[in-house]
């Protein structure tokens, strides 16, 4: 997955095509959120996390929780890319007996650390994981990816306060800051700015990056520390990144019905750039 710094390189396009395949077969899905976090996940799994698709529950693996579970199409595409399950499984997305639901489940999908969907859960669980590593003096790390709409949830801030209280330096939290949520621009729904200052005030060591710049993502996620303040990466992203007609569109936050012909148009637009 090392291929320069352009997010729409061969891998970036291939992963997006995988997502579009799943979307077509499932006939529904959260496309905008998936494209928003895809570049973060490809770098995370490709160049940062210690993980093993042959032994997905290896004790030494780094733990990653996709707290904004509705971005799961990106996670599925990246897990398939790394061999956690065959790429063909993506075409079963959201079908009755598929392992791949509209939100990720650890009970059904190899490589999914924790089931998420209802927002605001992942960071608390991540604090527990990081504390477990500390108790056992183990060196694996915990990563949690939050949505910027998700941080509306009060439970996120309960967990944030405690992560800082416990000096969980081995905990790295990423906020997918695309400034949009289901019903439109976040500033019109619940403005969470100033995002950086908020997290600093809650005791985090904050880094700000372009969430589609592969080099910046890798640099920010690779900082290795085990003590001191937990880290928070504010990743400036674009909802739907990679297909201009759906970028920054709340209409593409979630579609409950998608026609194959519409997906064809998206594929054409993606590969013609």
């Amino acid at each position, binding site marked *: 997955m090392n291929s320069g710094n352009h997010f729409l390189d061969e891998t970036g396009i291939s992963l997006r095509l995988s997502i579009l395949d799943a979307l077509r077969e499932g006939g529904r899905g959260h496309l905008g959120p998936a494209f928003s976090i895809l570049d973060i996940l490809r770098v995370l799994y490709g160049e940062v996390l210690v993980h093993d698709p042959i032994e997905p529950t290896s004790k030494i693996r780094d733990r990653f929780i996709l707290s904004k579970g509705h971005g799961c199409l990106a996670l599925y595409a990246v897990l398939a890319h790394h061999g956690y399950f065959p790429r063909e499984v993506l075409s079963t997305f959201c079908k009755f007996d598929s392992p791949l639901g509209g939100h990720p489940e650890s009970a059904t999908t190899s490589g999914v650390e924790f089931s998420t969907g209802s927002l605001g859960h992942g960071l608390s669980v991540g604090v527990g994981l990081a504390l477990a590593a500390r108790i056992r003096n183990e060196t694996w790390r915990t990563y949690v990816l939050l949505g910027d709409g998700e941080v509306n949830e009060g439970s996120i801030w309960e967990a944030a306060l*405690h992560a800082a209280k416990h000096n969980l330096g081995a905990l790295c939290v990423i906020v997918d800051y695309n400034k949009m949520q289901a019903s439109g621009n976040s500033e019109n729904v619940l403005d969470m700015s100033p995002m950086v200052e908020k997290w600093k005030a809650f005791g985090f060591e904050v880094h700000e990056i372009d969430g589609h710049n592969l080099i910046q993502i890798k640099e920010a996620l690779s900082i290795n520390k085990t003590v001191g303040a937990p880290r928070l990466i504010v990743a400036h992203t674009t909802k739907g990144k990679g297909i201009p007609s759906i970028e920054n569109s709340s209409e593409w936050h979630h579609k409950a019905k998608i026609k194959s012909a519409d997906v064809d148009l998206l594929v054409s637009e993606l590969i013609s750039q």
Partner: protein
Amino acid sequence: MRQTALNTVYEMAQKDSRIVFIGSDLGSGTLEKMKAEFPLRFYMEGISEQYLIGMAAGLAKEGYIPYLNTISTFFTRRAFEQIAIDLALHNLPVRILASGGGMVYAPLGPTHTSIEDFSLMQSIPGIKIFSPADSVEMKNLLLETVEDPQPLYIRFGKGGEPIVTDADSSSVYTPKVFGDLASELLICTTGVILQEALKAREILNAQGIPLEIWHFPYLGGTSDPVVLNRYKDYKCILVAEEHIPIGGLFTNLLHLFNKNKLDSRSLHQVSLPFKYSHNYGNQADHLAFNGLDAAGISSRLSEILRH
């Protein structure tokens, strides 16, 4: 009961490195010894029940057995979704030690009285619900359930209740049988209401009426083989529970009777009403007011017998 539970957690922690205690702004002095001896397995966190459940789930996922303690309603009402998703959906062995079951906190008002906790917890697939009758049973329960792979909800009584269970009695998963085997009358109960049921039996025995009592420390124990084939032998079964009328022991028995084609006309109930109380006083006042004390239970049985 609470003090016994916390002391037992500490005793278990001394022998078992998987045991973790997590409190939510509990009073000073709580488990000071455990905090001193095992600082990495003792957490006194802020007032943040949603976080507490998730954090405990994370620890349990990594092989620890967290024991959480705060007031019952703060878990069951406020952190319901975290209990359902973080614990039950993932089948993680977290133990919720719920202080102030039933009307223990009556003087503090309806925000603190735990009258629908069984109902809330029983609606979540995969959680086991316990309600011990005294501190001996509390200790036995914690010791026996340590290897249970599921999340557990454990309702505490007020504390200081007379010891009515036997220290080396049967499993806490199994109903405990008290009383007069020749009786046609049966009380099914759970938690500290066992205390009142036993006193009610004395009242009825004095009137020459035999009475049997089945105490269910584990609410899922209603279909236990020890009792399953015996429900039909009773003319009258009075379910006494410190809980709203639905979602508790009585509801479990109705389902059981329906499933096993038993005649549910034998079932009667005495419970808290299906409303939040605006009275204060103390737990005993509320038990008496709602017919859940010994006098109320015995007179209810007498009344049923007359009809």
